[in-house]
């Protein structure tokens, strides 16, 4: 509880429920909405469509897989929310202690710190890989990841509101994604997605298990929940809205890729969005993919920063009496080191696979287990402050 009190005072965006005027309350909702959506946004659009479509199962039904996984994410969100609702002033770091006791709780908190930093590192190494592949082949990876780490330290030293403001700032870039991708419709063939369900519904559902892990980001709910003001119902609404916004956006991107490249052709293209943009000439711009990358990179940075921030906060909770500023340096450093470990694309893939599986554990398994325990032991966190 201690940590959260400190945090909430520090961030200043957390008030007592009743004291907040209704209008402010509402005004804050879009912000956390964009925070959630941006999180998921960032690692996604470039590589996620490939995850859907290059899986040998879904074929032309890849876009349906995305919708199904959106549904799965929604269900997961609902479960997470049911857990978090019981402890309205606690992050996942606290909740563990409250349910399982001090020692186990600390172990759990450490595990979540490890998980957040590992996801951050994986997103970082993949982002750097894409930059290396597409625009800066000679630039060493350490230079690229240090740039992101530097930004993370700079922003992370502030409070969560600083990070949220950065999200609001870059959320203005998101419409450009859509606009650039719309260019693809100059040369598409809708017949590629027919017959709908060609691959068989079982296969499409199977494809959804691949897509679901591409929707990283919503797990930050575990950490952000108490910091966002509003009633629990409002928070659920905001997150759900973000989930469906992102799901529909992904569906749109996946669909565009499929009808642009054909289900056959997309199999060999790991970054279909970039590849598609590479063929457009927008006015005087010869290569739209370069523009896209410049818009995309701040988004990825934002998502990496939130993971580092979440990790630093946990470390602060465990070792610095809730002061995350001290932890942000080595949280960023750990992330940086993780991102420098894999040496070949195969290693990166293996890291991604591990993180994918960890996601199921940390987002699916553990919270559900905690929820069950909380219900059985009738544990409940007090009202905030």
């Amino acid at each position, binding site marked *: 509880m201690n940590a959260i009190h400190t945090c909430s005072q520090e961030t200043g965006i957390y008030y007592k429920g009743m004291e907040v005027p209704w209008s402010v309350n509402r005004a804050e909702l879009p912000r956390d909405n964009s925070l959630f959506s941006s999180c998921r946004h960032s690692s996604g659009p470039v590589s996620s469509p490939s995850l859907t479509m290059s899986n040998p199962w879904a074929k032309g039904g890849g876009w349906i897989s995305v919708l199904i996984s959106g549904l799965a994410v929604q269900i997961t969100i609902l479960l997470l929310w049911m857990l978090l609702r019981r402890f309205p002033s606690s992050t996942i770091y606290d909740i563990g202690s409250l349910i399982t006791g001090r020692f186990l709780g600390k172990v759990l908190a450490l595990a979540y710190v490890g998980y957040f930093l590992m996801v951050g590192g994986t997103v970082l190494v993949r982002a750097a890989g894409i930059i290396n*592949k*597409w*625009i*800066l*082949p*000679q*630039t*060493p990876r350490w*230079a*690229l990841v*240090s*740039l992101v780490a*530097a930004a993370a330290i700079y922003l992370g030293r502030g409070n969560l509101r600083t990070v949220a403001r950065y999200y609001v700032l870059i959320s203005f870039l998101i419409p450009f994604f859509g606009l650039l991708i719309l260019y693809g419709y100059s*040369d598409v*063939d809708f*017949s*590629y*997605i*027919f*017959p709908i369900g*060609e691959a068989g519904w079982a296969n499409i559902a199977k494809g959804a298990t691949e897509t679901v892990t591409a929707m990283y980001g919503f797990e930050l709910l575990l950490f952000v929940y108490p910091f966002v003001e509003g009633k629990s119902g409002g928070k659920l609404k905001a997150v759900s809205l973000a989930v469906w916004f992102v799901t529909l956006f992904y569906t749109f991107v996946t669909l565009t890729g499929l009808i*642009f*490249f*054909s289900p*056959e*052709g997309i199999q060999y293209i790991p970054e279909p969005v970039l590849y598609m943009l*590479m*063929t457009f*000439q927008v006015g005087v711009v*010869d290569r739209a993919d370069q523009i896209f990358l410049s818009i995309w990179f701040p988004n990825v940075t934002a998502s990496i920063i939130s993971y580092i921030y979440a990790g630093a906060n946990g470390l602060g909770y465990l070792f610095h009496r809730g002061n995350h500023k001290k932890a942000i340096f080595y949280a960023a450093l750990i992330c940086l080191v993780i991102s420098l470990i894999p040496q070949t694309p195969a290693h990166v893939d293996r890291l991604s696979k591990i993180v994918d599986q960890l996601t199921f554990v940390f987002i699916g398994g553990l919270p559900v287990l905690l929820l069950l325990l909380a219900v059985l032991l009738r544990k409940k966190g007090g009202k905030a402050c």
Partner: protein
Amino acid sequence: MLRKWVCWLMIASVFLLPGCWDQDLLKDARLVYAKGYDRSPDGKVIQTLVIRRVTPGEEPKPLNTVHSAVGSTVRDASESNLLKIDNLRFYKFQVELLGESLAKKDLFSYMDVIYRDPEAPLTAKFAVVDGKASDILQQKKVSEKLIGEYLVKLIESGEEQSTFPQETVQSIRPKMLDPGRDFVLPDIKQKGKEVVIKGAAMFHGHRMTGTLDPDQSILFTLLSGEPGKSARFSKKVNPGKVTNPSNYITVSADGRKVKRKMKVNVRRNGEVEVDLEVNLPVTVMEYAQDRLDEEKQVKRLNKTLSKILTEEADEVIGKMKKARCDGLGVGRQLIAYHPEVWKEKKWSRDYPKVRFHPKVKVEIVGSGILN
């Protein structure tokens, strides 16, 4: 104090210097403007590059140099060229010529290097050369124009006039990979000191399997529903001497107003029938006999032109069947809307059995400033 400054310097350099690893100065780059590939009799690839240079001096003058190299693969040949020319850069090439000898082999394996390179300009144009690509490129100039520019203009105007289908390096890729669709590329040839339009080259799978004359390739672009800005025909509509120009009419159709309908039907016995209808509103460009204000006359001309073009469309389709080139994407329609029929078919065998019912409807809607 000093420590603080050193710290700031380091941070600043992290932000400013990373660009330097990947700098590639345009002024040093030797840009390839056009490329050509041929196949030598022993199966090697011959790469011919046209490099654009500007002569130094008071009056800078653009200049082309042409280089050739041989290799087992495309990239292998490039390597030999790279040894000869330093700072060779491919990211601005506009057109790629394919010698017929190479186009008749597995094209996809020659294309791999382009699709793999993040710097490759995927909007470049293709053309098949009747003969050797290197012969055309070695000319360096065609009627005062540099060969690279000349070829780009030639292909672009061919596309505008619907003689060439509008394809780029990227746009043919899904068609190459799709079992239910083939593509058609521009076909050019050398004639004396000129380079001229020969028509279109039809592909089946990854190989070139036939050609169309210029008139036929215009009809093909109309039938495929993707004509360029305009489409022009000159047809003999009156009986009488072939040598008398007044027996001919020249009409032009506005590409945007051309309407095409394609319907793929499957009979109960599994036979595939394709109804193909093209509505062609045209304006008369040249008709020495005039009398276009008479309704009867216009109706007769509409009917005659429709009949001629429908017959020619039949010929085009016959040629496409012979080449097994499914340029209209009938197979694609089957995959998408009749998947159970498609599963029964072996397309390269069954495609020629498809029955087409083409119908071109010409309607004269304008006659210039004369009646």
